[in-house]
């Protein structure tokens, strides 16, 4: 437990402290610390190669951290196996899509709800009554998500045949099906036009407001990040260079230098 929690202040949902990741000799993340408060939308920005996706992959336990701690609801994430992250309440999407290509849209979303059911091999083989109930509840939740994201028409389509933008929406629905407390969105605006970005902004807000999901958002689309985020964290070459409100970060000299280049 950190000092803030000891004083009685609400502990942050996510508390990253001194996180370092190296691949061979390359430093991907160096001593990165920041917090994400429950119920907020936090933008994570930085030029290509700044370490944003690396950070997501550490949170998903796809990459190993060399140093530092990550607390989620006060519990250390780095002790958890990869498949325990979703049940804890962390859902994510992937920058370059990681859908189950041969499965239908509906089945992809239902897989997202895997961690919210418990029927294993034996229970499924014997089709125990609770398995039917779980499947029914998951099916109903899936239909609602498909409708919310405008995917109902495509429910039976194999996901591999859909356009990039639609697949991104399927990934979002899949992540939401796990009923996350924290949602990691990796470049959700990739491949979207202006109008669609506006829709996405409203969608992210309603995910926070209506579903009560905290959002950590990696995005290059500055307009979207600055409009939707409560707080923004900027990374460059694996280090945190700024953090604060969108206005503060936008006017930060380090951030401007990182994006535009210029003399030190």
């Amino acid at each position: 437990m950190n000092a803030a929690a000891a004083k009685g202040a609400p502990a942050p949902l996510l508390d990253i402290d001194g996180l370092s990741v190296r691949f061979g000799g390359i430093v991907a993340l160096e001593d990165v610390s920041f917090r994400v408060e429950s119920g907020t939308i936090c933008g994570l920005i930085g030029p290509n190669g700044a370490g944003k996706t690396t950070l997501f992959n550490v949170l998903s336990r796809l990459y190993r951290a060399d140093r530092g701690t990550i607390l989620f609801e006060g519990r250390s994430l780095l002790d958890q196996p990869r498949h325990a992250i979703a049940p804890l309440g962390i859902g994510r999407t992937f920058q370059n899509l990681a859908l189950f290509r041969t499965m239908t849209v509906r089945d992809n979303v239902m897989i997202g709800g895997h961690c919210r059911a418990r029927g294993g091999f034996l229970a499924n083989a014997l089709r125990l009554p609770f398995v039917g109930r779980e499947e029914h509840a998951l099916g109903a939740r899936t239909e609602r998500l498909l409708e919310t994201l405008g995917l109902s028409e495509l429910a039976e389509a194999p996901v591999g045949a859909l356009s990039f933008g639609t697949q991104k929406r399927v990934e979002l629905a899949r992540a939401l099906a796990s009923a996350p407390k924290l949602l990691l969105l990796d470049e959700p605006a990739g491949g979207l036009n202006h109008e669609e970005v506006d829709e996405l902004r409203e969608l992210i807000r309603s995910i926070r407001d209506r579903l009560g999901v905290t959002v950590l958002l990696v995005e290059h689309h500055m307009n979207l990040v600055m409009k939707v985020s409560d707080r923004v964290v900027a990374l460059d070459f694996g280090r945190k260079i700024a953090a604060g409100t969108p206005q503060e970060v936008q006017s930060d000299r380090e951030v401007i230098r990182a994006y535009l280049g210029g003399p030190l």
Partner: protein
Amino acid sequence: MATLDSSRPAAGALFAGLSLRRWKLIGLAATLATACALPFLVSGYQLLLANQVVVYAIALLGLNILTGYNGQFSLGHGAFYAIGAYTTAILLDKTGIPYWATIPLAGGLCLVAGFLFGLPALRLEGHYLALATFALAIATPQLLKYKRFDFLTGGVQGIVITAPDAPFGLPLRGDQWLYFFCLAWTVLLFVIGWNLLRGRTGRALVAIRDHPIAAATMGIDNALYKSVTFGVSAMYTGIAGALGALLAQFVSPDSFDFFLSVRFLVGIVVGGLASMAGAFFGAIFIEFVPNIADQISKAAPQAIYGAVLIAFIFFMPTGVVGMLRILGARLGRFVAPGPGR
């Protein structure tokens, strides 16, 4: 992406006024009715062949669960078939356990064996897993011949067992009874397989095959699922082996050579990967095509077999079931042109 669309017609597609689901049910009912009538229509060698198809279908479903649905390759399922067959043969030979009770015991033993083999094999991907299972396939017949185990396995001589008679004074010949006994197991295991593959577990198996990292991110314990799947798959194949032993009334190491494992793999690919019905078509193929090849040319049956196999792969690259799906979709569009997409 037109190919993807046509291979999977929409669930609601109509064909001659009936949905695809209905047609599948009709097909299933017709198959079951035929299967039940068969022992009264054919006898002797013909019935033996039919019974072997029923038994192979179980083994192929087991391998298909592993390879078709979960994406793990096995060149060694003949070994689990052998373990199942030998379990039944040894129990019948050495103990007073009734024949019907040996089948679940053989299945249970193979479940454990498959799970234990699957645990270390998890670390192996693709080609390497295929090699490890290949090792299992070539080692098993030799172990069965091993002198120290002679007292159990009968060494190269194998074990002769007697086939059961119909119980409760049923008016059935021995071979008819055995056929129904095997058919009942097949139906039971297909129902269990259907339950496993359509729900939460089935989705998880396919998810692991399609994208293992994303599957883990969804909270699926890949290691557990893959090893249990290996066990379940081995259990199916082991039960098939046990039934096969009753059918052949004899087990010997040379019945379970590497070629048996390859035939299983041929069966699931020809029948259709990741399809339950495919197991049946595959079983028909691996049972009948070698016989037909033998009748065509006594001199080079393997060459004929190879030619037929190549023709199948060439004309039905997605297996018999894949071809049926495509045909069904085309007919559906031809008979009742739905709203174009």
